């Protein structure tokens, strides 16, 4: 079996990796538990991220609080459909898609599915790759709030949703990372003996 840290392959029964000294386990038995735990935390954090305002804009005569979806709708009302689409994709579609993808992977790892392991592995890679881009909203808020600080005239502050959104993204990334991709293939190895005899 392979060391999860340095990827050196050891024969079964080896308790520790001689190269890096980490504990060798053939399968992370708690992998799915971790996935689900982070997944749930991510979902919990994602709810207020959508309810509370992401961006608080204060001008001399005007104060507005925009949630993620509300902001996207408002932008769309002004005709900037492209921007609205980017916001929606980055802030809603991707996180929700990640939740669904991780949940799908975790469930299929346990129950089995008709989807080929190759496709599922590909899905997992996509989730891992996209995860880092989920923070785009948080970055936008951070940049805006540091740039637009004109004292009383106008200021932009991050709302409570910015924090929870960031937490949610972190949780989903951890969730995705916790997923032991070998579990996808375990099912294959279990099924094959049944088919081949």
């Amino acid at each position: 079996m392979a060391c999860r840290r340095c990827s050196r392959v050891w024969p079964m029964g080896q308790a520790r990796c001689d190269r890096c000294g980490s504990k060798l386990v053939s399968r992370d038995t708690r992998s799915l538990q971790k996935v689900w735990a982070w997944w749930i935390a991510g979902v919990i954090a994602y709810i207020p991220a959508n309810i509370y305002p992401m961006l608080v804009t204060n001008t001399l005569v005007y104060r507005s609080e925009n949630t993620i979806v509300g902001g996207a709708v408002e932008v769309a009302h002004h005709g900037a459909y492209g921007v609205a689409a980017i916001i929606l994709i980055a802030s809603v579609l991707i996180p929700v898609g990640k939740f669904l993808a991780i949940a799908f992977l975790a469930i299929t790892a346990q129950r089995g599915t008709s989807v080929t392991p190759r496709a599922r592995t590909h899905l997992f890679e996509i989730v891992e790759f996209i995860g880092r881009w989920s923070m785009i909203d948080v970055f936008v808020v951070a940049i805006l709030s540091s740039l637009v600080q004109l004292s009383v005239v106008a200021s932009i502050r991050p709302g409570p949703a910015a924090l929870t959104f960031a937490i949610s993204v972190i949780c989903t990334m951890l969730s995705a990372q916790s997923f032991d991709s070998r579990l996808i293939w375990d099912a294959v190895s279990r099924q094959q003996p049944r088919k081949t005899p």
Partner: protein
Amino acid sequence: MSDPRTPTPENIPVHEGRPSIWERISFIWLIPIVALVVALGAAWNNYNSQGPLIEITFENAAGVKADETELRFRDIRVGLVEEVGFSEDLKQVQVSVRVAKELSPFIDASAVFWIVRPEVSAQGVTGLDTVLSGVYIQGAWDGTPEGFRTAFEGQSNPPLLDSGREGISFTLRSTDSLPTANTPILYKGVQVGQVAGAEINADGSGVTAPAVIYEPFTQLVTSGTRFWDVSGFSFSLGASGARLNFDSFASLISGGVTFETMGSGGDPLTDAAVFELFPSEETARDDFLVEGDGDDSSVTLTMIFEQNLAGLTPGAPVELGGLRVGEVTSLTGIVDADRFGDDDVRLLTTMRINPSRIGLGEEAGDDDLLDFLSRRVADGLRGQLTNASLLTGALKIRLIDVEGAEDATLDLDADPYPVLPTTEADITDVATSAQGVLQRVNDLPIEEVMQSAIGFLDNATALVGSQALQDAPEELRGILSAARGVVEGEELQAIPGQVSVVLRDLEQISGKLNTIVTEIERRNVIDQLIGAIASVEEAAGGLPGIVEQAGAILDDAEEVSIKTLADRTTSLIAAAEALIDQPSTRALPQELNEALEQLNLTLAELREGGLVNNANATLASARDAASAVEEATGLLPGIAEQLRSVANQAGATLSTYGRESQFSRETSAALRQIEAAASAIERLARAIERNPNSLILGR
């Protein structure tokens, strides 16, 4: 695992341990649990801290926005509008406000809400901060929780008593007009209250406005208080002259209401109190005179006047003996053929009379007043319409005693009020009088006057233009040149020279006289003369006794009879004879003769010495000189007289000619010179006459 007995070596068995449940469950589950707890806690906290929702309805909620407009209490945010909608019938705006939880118990029945907007009025600019921040809803409630309520009626105007101001609110009423909202109530220039916006009565008969007096000024207001308007200024022209009234420039601009408590006592101010707002201080005082301190003791009476005259209005005074005792409250016409016997319209006047003003005392009630009036009516008291003001034609009612009036009584049973009998109106018709005056002016013979004036002026013009008057200056000039000739004549010029010659002669004469006099003194002539005269006096000394006696006799003679008079006269004569018979008496002539002889001798001696001749000659020449002086002096007044007559003539001519021209000025100057010369000459003449010695002695 179909066949466990034939394990394939590639098939690495997967160790699926069965550890206890605690070992199987990863600690990682703590994270979602914590997240869940935190989320739930936050949600619960959020829900728990969320205050209740109250609904306020407004007629007009301009500027109120959901999630933006704040609810403020003492200008601090205590809530936020969550929703703005309409009432079910769409007639009002319904504003849902989430209020702070800790304040919700205080939002009870006492709470009032109004929308603060920027407002620019004469009192100043308010709500300026709302220009930028938008409007907000201001709430006010007291500090005692009395049961939370969720539905409120929003006020259209800020309440008079803001939160934190104590005071008593009451109602101001006027039939005329009330000041604008937020007008201050001033007392001696200090704001002690405020008037809110006025509203028209339901029946349109007047306007009322809620007003408030702040603590601790509420004690200044009693039922004896009268309010009046000091907004702007008033100009009145009356019998006492013109008056321009305004309280202060501040109230001139912003308006104001002031008051004065005109009577002591009276009930303190209460919430239900209603006060009349009078247009001026005078009317307020008049009302107090009639109404008193509000104990409503006035008695209502009616009068029916035969004439229906214009000019009497509600509020017109009712006077008794020149004192205002009441006022007219209403006027109507009345037609009652049964009662009066014809169909004429009569004037039914209702009035209030205050018993305390008549002098029946503070405690006097209706019955006292009616008793009094009944007695007076029996004596001839009647109501009479008369002029209140000649200028405006307003009328008033006067209660007067009419001599020989027809019998009448105060009809106490009349409906609805007792009826006081009336008499004929005493009205001076200003229009008629003015017409009479104009008629007289019209009758004046103005044209004749003008005609004669024109004739006079024509004559005057002719006179002035006449040749005689035109020649007058020429003649005058001739007179003046004649006068100048006289003054400059040689005779007149020579007078001073002659006079000085005469004076020189006189001086010489007086020197000679002095030597004569000293000579006489030297020779004791005078002493001798004095001695002789003294002896004569001595001799005459006895004479007074006789004279007195004679006087006594004459006195007696007036009293006594002629016979006794004769006797007395006889005795007097006898006494006189006896006196004359005395040797001394006889010697008197002798002595006198001797004295005279001595004088003669002296004079003879003098004559012999040539002195007398000298003296005679001197005196003769002196006499000549004096007569010459006299002659000269006699001439002087003549000259003066001549000059004066010239001057007078000239003056007379000049005065007819006029005073303005250069010519006349010069002429009068010349005349004055002539007059001065004349008077100088006259003075000289008079001085010489009065005191020739001064000429002689040079003094």
